[in-house]
């Protein structure tokens, strides 16, 4: 660059450059300028976020109380709550986590540690990154086509609403799992890639097999990064609405899914508006699965019960509304087909109105049994007996329940004319934001702790 004294006879000359002071002043100025710029932009972002939160808090904070968290939605804003919404969000997240985490981590490990680098894996890698940026509604449409229609075609018996996944928690959970899977895979791969090759070689050099290296070293050391990715992906999923609208989240759900083992009786639990038996314990009722799909009374499940009068609390539900629970006394004969029992219930005054083929009648007579009743087009009633918490999914029957989630509940309230519902929406928004921020804070804590524990 510059002349070196004595080299090839060139004389030592001053550097053709501006004075040192000026150069230093300029670089110091640019340093300060960018520090300032960073501060201003960050404050701006925080200010906008802060204003949003404040606005939400102003509208909603007063509504957040025990009643709000433990009530089902209602036509009266002051009585409405988010119980079904947060329970739904929680359960959907559970399904999402239970599927996306193992599959995503396994896929990440495979791509990073096992897969040969060739054109095929390159295509897969590129596509996984691309999937992360696909609009979520696309996932919703795909899930509608696959989980609901195709699964019904493949596995579902016609007119049987038990098989197939339907508009249920599991459909929603799987849809969101697909949505966050690329994020989990990418996070896993990044976390694995951050582990120096020297650590792998150290383990291999001691005679560890590939799986032992993964199990004893790579997974523990990358857990911080992986769990951060998982938590952040779940906090994205919890706020998603678009895909859930397409797979049939309900805006209005006034029940919580059955508990796994129904350890707790519905009776006496006022929050559970599902219906209970009043006088007659139905534990001796046995169900028979219908032999075929024909809705004839003979094929319907029979009741094995002592003759007498059955007192039931029943409530009718459609997707639009639900009736108040009504006590019904029904005479029963031994081995009476269930359909005739239902038919006699149907005749009870005030209940038969608006009872159409889309209605679902829940008779939760006893912790033991839950009936799902459906009228078909011919006017006959097909009834399917589901042992409570049993059904085709066994103790996982809850995954097959209808559901709503927090953001959908918010939408529903926002769209109502009564301004008091806006406060409910704001309150639900605060709860949702609390959940999201809480998860992100968890991710930060996990990451910080792992950083402290693991160094290379």
């Amino acid at each position, binding site marked *: 660059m510059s002349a070196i004294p004595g080299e090839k006879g060139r004389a030592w000359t001053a550097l053709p450059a501006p004075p040192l002071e000026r150069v230093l002043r300029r670089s110091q100025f640019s340093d300060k300028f960018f520090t300032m710029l960073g501060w201003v932009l960050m404050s701006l972002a925080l200010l906008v976020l802060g204003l949003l939160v404040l606005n939400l808090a102003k509208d909603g904070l007063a509504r957040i109380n025990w009643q709000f968290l433990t009530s089902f939605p209602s036509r009266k804003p002051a009585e409405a709550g988010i119980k079904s919404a947060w329970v739904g969000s929680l359960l959907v997240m559970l399904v999402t986590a239970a599927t996306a985490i193992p599959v995503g981590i396994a896929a990440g490990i495979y791509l990073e540690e096992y897969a*040969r*680098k060739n054109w095929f894996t390159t295509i897969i890698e590129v596509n996984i990154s691309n999937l992360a940026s696909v609009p979520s509604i696309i996932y919703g449409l795909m899930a509608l086509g696959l989980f609901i229609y195709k699964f019904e075609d493949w596995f579902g018996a016609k007119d049987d609403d038990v098989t197939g996944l339907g508009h249920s928690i599991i459909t929603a959970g799987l849809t969101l799992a697909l949505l966050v899977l690329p994020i989990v895979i990418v996070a896993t791969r990044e976390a694995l890639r951050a582990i*120096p090759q*020297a*650590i*792998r*070689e*150290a*383990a*291999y*050099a*001691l*005679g*560890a*097999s590939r799986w*032992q290296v993964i199990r*004893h*070293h790579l997974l523990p*050391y990358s857990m911080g990064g992986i769990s951060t990715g998982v938590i952040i992906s779940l906090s994205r999923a919890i706020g998603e609405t678009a895909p859930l609208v397409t797979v049939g989240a309900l805006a209005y759900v006034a029940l919580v899914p059955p508990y796994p083992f129904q350890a707790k009786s519905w009776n006496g639990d006022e929050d559970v508006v599902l219906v209970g038996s009043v006088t007659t314990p139905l534990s001796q009722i046995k169900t028979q699965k219908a032999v075929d799909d024909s809705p004839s009374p003979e094929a319907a499940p029979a009741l094995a019960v002592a003759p007498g009068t059955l007192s039931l609390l029943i409530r009718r539900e459609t997707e639009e509304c639900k009736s108040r629970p009504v006590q019904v006394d029904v005479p029963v004969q031994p081995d009476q087909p269930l359909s005739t029992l239902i038919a006699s219930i149907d005749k009870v005054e005030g209940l038969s109105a608006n009872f159409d083929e889309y209605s679902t009648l829940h008779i939760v007579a006893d912790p033991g049994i839950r009936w799902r009743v459906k009228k078909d087009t011919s006017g006959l009633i097909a009834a399917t007996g589901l042992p409570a918490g049993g059904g085709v999914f066994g103790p996982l029957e809850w995954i097959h329940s209808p559901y709503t989630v927090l953001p959908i509940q918010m939408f529903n309230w926002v769209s109502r004319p009564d301004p008091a519902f806006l406060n409910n929406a704001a309150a639900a928004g605060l709860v949702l934001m609390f959940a999201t921020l809480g998860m992100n804070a968890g991710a930060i804590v996990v990451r910080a702790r792992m950083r402290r*524990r*693991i*160094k*290379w």
Partner: protein
Amino acid sequence: MVSVMPRGQAEGSRAGLRASGAMVEPRLRSASTPDGGAGAAGDAMPQHAAHDPYAGRTLKAEVKDFSFYYGGTVKAVKHVSLRIPQNSVTALIGPSGCGKTTLLRCFNRMHDLYPGNKYEGSITLLPQGLNVVDRKTSALEMRMRISMVFQKPNPFPKSIFENVAYGLRLRGVRSRAEIEARVENALRSAALWEEVKDRLNKPGYALSGGQQQRLCIARALATDPEIVLFDEPTSALDPIATGKIEELVSELKDRVTILIVTHNMQQAARVSDFTAFMYMGELIEVDRTERIFQNPSNTLTEQYISGRFG
């Protein structure tokens, strides 16, 4: 570095290599006779040449016409034949990129971890006569019997105790008492016990660089390996830590056979019994260390030793 060396000399070195190959030929043949008792071959060998560096030594491993390809095409080690005497330190020296580390990593099949690599020829572990680089030989078994210490200290982000115990756990040692005894033994052998005995549950990376490297040595020794490979173990350490490691290497040869790659010729002179000089993937000369450094028979070796290239 090639440009430094006149072409004629390079040719000369090849010729020298061929000559030395011819020299060892008869002995290699006698060692490979079916019932020749490979372990005893070194002792019983008749003195064909005037100078036999391995006289009176039992062999631990024998490299025969061994070549190695990276990614199936780049030949990084070319037709190397080398013998590793038991309970001795053999140093591999040579300029950067000469293939010495590549050769070292063949001994525990580290190249298996990356796709497309290919071994040719044999590295025979004696006295069993097991070919290390044979596809049929288990790489895991070889790595349990031939352990390695790397260039940069690479302790696991686990406790000091768990670092040393890991090899034992892989070997299936269950007894807590046994593991504790062996961990202590390994740490003593690595001259680290006194420094860490009160903080065995502290993380390994909390130690200084030199201590970390000794921890890695303890980790490599814990399972009683037959050979320990050192890949420039002191290149990331200061002179004091280097001194300790060198002392350790000299002490350890009573227990194990050591193969050490080093850039530092003084180090090779200080710690090793035998020195092999490699250049561009070929083994140029191997002899007793004193001879290599005082009276090398190859001009290329002499030039490298005297610092004229490399």
